[in-house]
């Protein structure tokens, strides 16, 4: 954006200098940039919108493509496939499991990483790059290796662990580490945590008071960002759940789509819109409270 908005200025100035009379063509370079920008955005929009619209048409209109003529464009629309999918108890069950997993993963991550990020920032800022690298490790190891390794270990020592649906939580917590840590770290950097900490301490506040009254309240934006990212990740994660044979929302969706293609797509669109709404609302809420979104890694 900055590059395209900045471009017209140098192009425009020589033509608008007092020496040369105003001409109609003087705005041409500006228009070109603007036209290019619109073409670019339109193409990008089409790229994203067409598959969605196609998906929506397939899910909600019961007219096969082969029979779709202009006069039939507005016939046969119904939200019944979605209703069918939503009233399926199995779907609700899978959704409930996914939400529970997301909440647990978020809690574990925040409980582990908030103190770690704070202490690193204040007492050992030199360790920040090390932590960034360490938290990235789970992404270097592919899910299949992670699952095989862990399941081999646990199958021998604690088979009950793998049987439980909650065996996914440690994987997800690990998987979301880089996002959570980055969001928290960016938040601490943005509020100048070290200076705030020192200011509070110099006024006689204890460590606990400083953390709970000063640091945590100012980290709200990054905590929300970390939680949102983790939730998005867990709600859409397929590989771990599939490999461990658990029925979460994504694995259910894949199965459901096999038996009811239209219902599956209807559900997918529904989840997409819901997610967009949740993110939109949380960003709005953060903005309203004067929290800086750009500094949260979101």
């Amino acid at each position: 954006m900055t590059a395209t908005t900045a471009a017209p200025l140098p192009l425009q100035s020589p033509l608008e200098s007092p020496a040369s009379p105003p001409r109609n063509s003087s705005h041409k370079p500006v228009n070109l940039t603007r036209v290019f920008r619109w073409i670019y955005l339109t193409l990008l929009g089409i790229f994203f919108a067409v598959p969605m619209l196609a998906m929506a048409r397939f899910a909600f209109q019961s007219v096969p493509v082969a029979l779709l003529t202009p006069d039939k464009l507005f016939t046969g629309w119904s939200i019944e496939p979605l209703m069918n999918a939503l009233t399926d108890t199995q779907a609700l069950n899978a959704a409930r499991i996914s939400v529970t997993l997301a909440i647990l993963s978020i809690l574990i991550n925040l409980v582990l990483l908030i103190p770690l990020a704070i202490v690193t920032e204040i007492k050992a800022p030199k360790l920040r790059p090390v932590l960034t690298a360490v938290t990235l490790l789970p992404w270097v190891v592919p899910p299949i290796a992670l699952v095989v390794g862990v399941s081999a270990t646990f199958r021998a020592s604690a088979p009950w662990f793998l049987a439980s649906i909650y065996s996914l939580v440690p994987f997800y917590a690990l998987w979301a580490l880089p996002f959570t840590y980055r969001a928290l770290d960016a938040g601490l950097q943005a509020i100048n945590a070290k200076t705030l900490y020192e200011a509070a301490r110099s006024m006689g506040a204890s460590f606990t008071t400083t953390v709970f009254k000063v640091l945590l309240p100012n980290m709200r934006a990054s905590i929300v960002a970390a939680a949102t990212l983790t939730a998005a990740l867990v709600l859409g994660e397929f590989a771990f759940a599939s490999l461990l044979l658990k029925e979460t929302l994504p694995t259910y969706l894949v199965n459901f789509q096999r038996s009811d293609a239209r219902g599956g797509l209807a559900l997918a669109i529904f989840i997409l819109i819901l997610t967009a709404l949740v993110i939109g609302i949380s960003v709005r809420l953060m903005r309203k409270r004067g929290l800086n979104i750009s500094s949260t890694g979101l």
Partner: protein
Amino acid sequence: MTRVVMSQIRKTFGESIALEDFSIIFEPGDLVCLLGPSGCGKTTALRILAGFENADSGSVTVNGEDITRVPVSKRHFGMVFQDYSLFPNMTSRENIDFGLKAQKRSSAQRTEIIDRMLFITALEDQADKFPHQMSGGQKQRVALARAIATEPNLLLLDEPLSALDAKVRESLRDEIRRLQKEIGVTTVFVTHDQDEALAIADQVGVMSRGRLEQIASPRDLYEHPVNPFVASFIGSINRFVAIAGDQGMWGVLNRWVMSDRPSVLGDTAVLGIRPEELAVDVAGDGNARITDISFLGPVTRVSVEFADHATSQNPEVIADLMSAECARLSVGDKVQVRVRDDVTSAIMMSKPESEAFTESESIVHVN
């Protein structure tokens, strides 16, 4: 009122020495500026004083009581930081209240103190605003109010003005001085801006490479620097080769001046002459040529180049003249540069040649 003494502080960070044999006394009620180029250890000294860093050796005492190992939160000092340190989630009022709450004061007392602080810093209309709703200058005023609200033993200011623009910087600087005098708190002000230090300090401590070079009143520092570093760091100075006459006088350009060192007849040394101690007269057969003239308001700074490079140690000599006297000067003019008649002494910028020869280890090159 508090007397604070730092004695023989040493602090290293890995290989680099931040402070070495650093001793300084902050007299009760004084505003002391620690001044020096970046990396000279002034901020480290302040952070050791505040308790954010531990000294490797040495001690800090407050009214005779050793506080070297007392944690930050128990020192009862107030501090203002360079980068805005107001708590973003609290209004001005709540920010000032924070330290008072930590001191467990009654709510009536707190309200009274906050109102008084807001009044003396003229921030009443900003009381319920959050930091992001205020300008930089206002934020630093709240930070100042917050620091003095707890009635600290010592007020520490770590470059509090360097993030502000020139106009605000100057007015806040004067406000800090006024408030400091009013409440009489012993204050340490760290800065790299000499104008700031000279303008408000009772005492200025000039630091370089982890050491305190000199501590003195601004005037003493300017007129009687103890060494070449202080002389050239505070204000500008021109270096001239001087020749010793009899009776301990040194000859610089046209004048005989005193110096802090005795001279041996015929000896040479480098002496420092301040720009405002020089006079410049147009003369066809003069000893120098004007290379630049910059108008600075009441004063005009004239740069000249000497025909004989042996006279001046700098490639360029600068002279500050009253602007009214400069109308007749222009770049390229041949001029006669001389030391003004009212100058009676000069600062020694190098060892006299005779001493340099006797101390062969540290030869100071003098032409």
